[in-house]
């Protein structure tokens, strides 16, 4: 372990925003995935109680992120990328190890819905308040959020009526409106049209410029190359590689061939 020594001079210059220390996250699931499945009460098989099984999502990950860094996280499906992001957001409890972070990191995922029965407008207000804004800040930023999302007049309609792209755009706009020190983006850039992607990437660069740190999980190598300076390659719950995008991406690509 001589590598940290060389980076310690850097650390004194760059201020760390996220420190992940030997992070292990296990999930306990009932065999058959019953606990994860909300509709399962119908599908419940008759018979004995289900036994629970432990899934090791992360098996000891350590790294430090700094101000102004934009970090792409790559890996196969089920490698633990999303769990890593959720742990950094404080939404998945470490089984062992710890996450230290500046401010409250905010996770932005495409699958995470706000409240579908409510109009986009109510969701903007709710989302803003949930992100910790005051009502005054929400009404101040409201127009900016709506404009950024490009949802237009549909803002009055329930979110359930939105297309997947519209919903994702609105969620991104809400989450990106708050002043984050650490923003975690899970696949959000994969949706939306070219125009929206361009604006999102611009917004991520702005956040970085404001001394923030951005994590980006994506299967789109293009998006990561465009926006990230550093990449983490997660493989079967372990950190396989951590370095500049130009080094990690080719290595990751080679492994998928």
């Amino acid at each position, binding site marked *: *372990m001589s590598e*940290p*020594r060389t980076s*310690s001079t850097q*650390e004194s210059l760059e*201020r*760390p*925003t*996220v*420190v*992940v*220390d*030997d992070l292990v996250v296990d*999930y*306990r699931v009932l065999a058959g995935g*019953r*606990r*994860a499945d*909300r509709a*399962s*009460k119908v599908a419940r098989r008759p018979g004995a109680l289900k036994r629970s099984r432990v899934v090791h999502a992360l098996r000891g990950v*350590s790294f*430090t992120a700094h101000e102004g860094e934009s970090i792409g996280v790559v890996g196969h499906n089920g490698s633990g990328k999303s769990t890593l992001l*959720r742990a*950094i*957001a*404080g*939404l*998945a*409890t*470490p089984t062992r190890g*710890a*996450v*230290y*972070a*500046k401010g*409250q*990191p*905010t*996770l*932005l*995922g495409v*699958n*995470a*819905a*706000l*409240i579908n*029965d*409510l109009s986009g407008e*109510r969701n903007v*207000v*709710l*989302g803003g*308040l*949930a*992100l*910790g804004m*005051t*009502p005054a800040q929400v009404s101040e930023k409201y127009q900016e959020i709506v404009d950024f999302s490009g949802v237009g007049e549909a803002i009055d309609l*329930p979110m359930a009526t939105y297309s997947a792209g519209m919903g994702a755009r609105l969620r991104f706009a809400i989450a990106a409106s708050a002043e984050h020190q650490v923003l975690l983006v899970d696949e959000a850039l994969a949706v939306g049209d070219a125009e929206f992607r361009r604006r999102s990437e611009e917004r991520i660069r702005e956040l970085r410029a404001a001394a923030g740190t951005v994590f980006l999980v994506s299967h789109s190598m293009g998006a990561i190359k465009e926006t990230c300076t550093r990449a983490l390659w997660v493989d079967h719950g372990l950190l396989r590689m951590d370095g500049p995008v130009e080094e990690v991406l080719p290595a990751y690509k080679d492994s998928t061939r």
Partner: protein
Amino acid sequence: MTDAVSSPSEIARRAGLPRLGGRPPFLQYVGALSGRRALLLELARSRFRASNEVNRLGMAWVVIRPLLNAGVYGLVFGLLLPAGTRPDNFVPFLVVGIFVFQFFAGCLNDGAKAITGNLGLVRTLHFPRALLPLATTLQQLLGLGPMMVVAAVICLVFGEPLALRWLGLPPALALLAAFSTGVGLVAARATLHIRDVTQLLPFITRLLFYTSGIFYAVDRVGLPRPVEVVALLNPVHVYISLVRGALVDGQAVDGSTWLLGLGWALLSVIAGFLFFWRAEERYGRE
């Protein structure tokens, strides 16, 4: 320790980064909750509106629903079933019982879904999780207001005099709300650990509906004394009695019922918050 190489926890300590996750101490948690009042109000209000606005008649359902309910139960229990256990002026008696019970049952059943039905929110955003069950109780309270106005009007129409005892209504409802809040918090956590609880809830709700003296007077059934004592201690019956005591003539309650109501409310709120708070870091996980 002069070595420049430092462990991750050292780096974090030097940079002054706090450790994430875990649950804050109880009082700090309650403080954080009250700091998020705006979110709580917005959640309850917008949900309440959304649940009604999908209908053509919109908010009118807030009043129509309890009226229809009173009509149906009035028909079934007032006209069709025999009347041995009924007190005088049965309609106000019945309407108050049903409305109070509906509020309680709403808190119990919606509270049970407060976390499991909002996993998207829980997995994305950071806020004290107790906000969700609290918002469902508040949403129910928004519906209880109009229901109580309807109940009061029905009482007046059926010849109940407007009397000083009506002043007992606000404190009775406050105790009921406190009790239901605690129940909602317990239900929210219980269903998260054991989804099977959701299967039992309809039966628990129905059992309480038939045992809480909604369409009969508990003391007129002629139960054996020990059973009757249990029936009278039942918190749902206690709160129904308190509200009836305020609105319906001849249903006056004594101080012991008020004390019982206060006791149940305190017990429920304190136990509910503690029970819910103890699993705070686990709500996003499963």
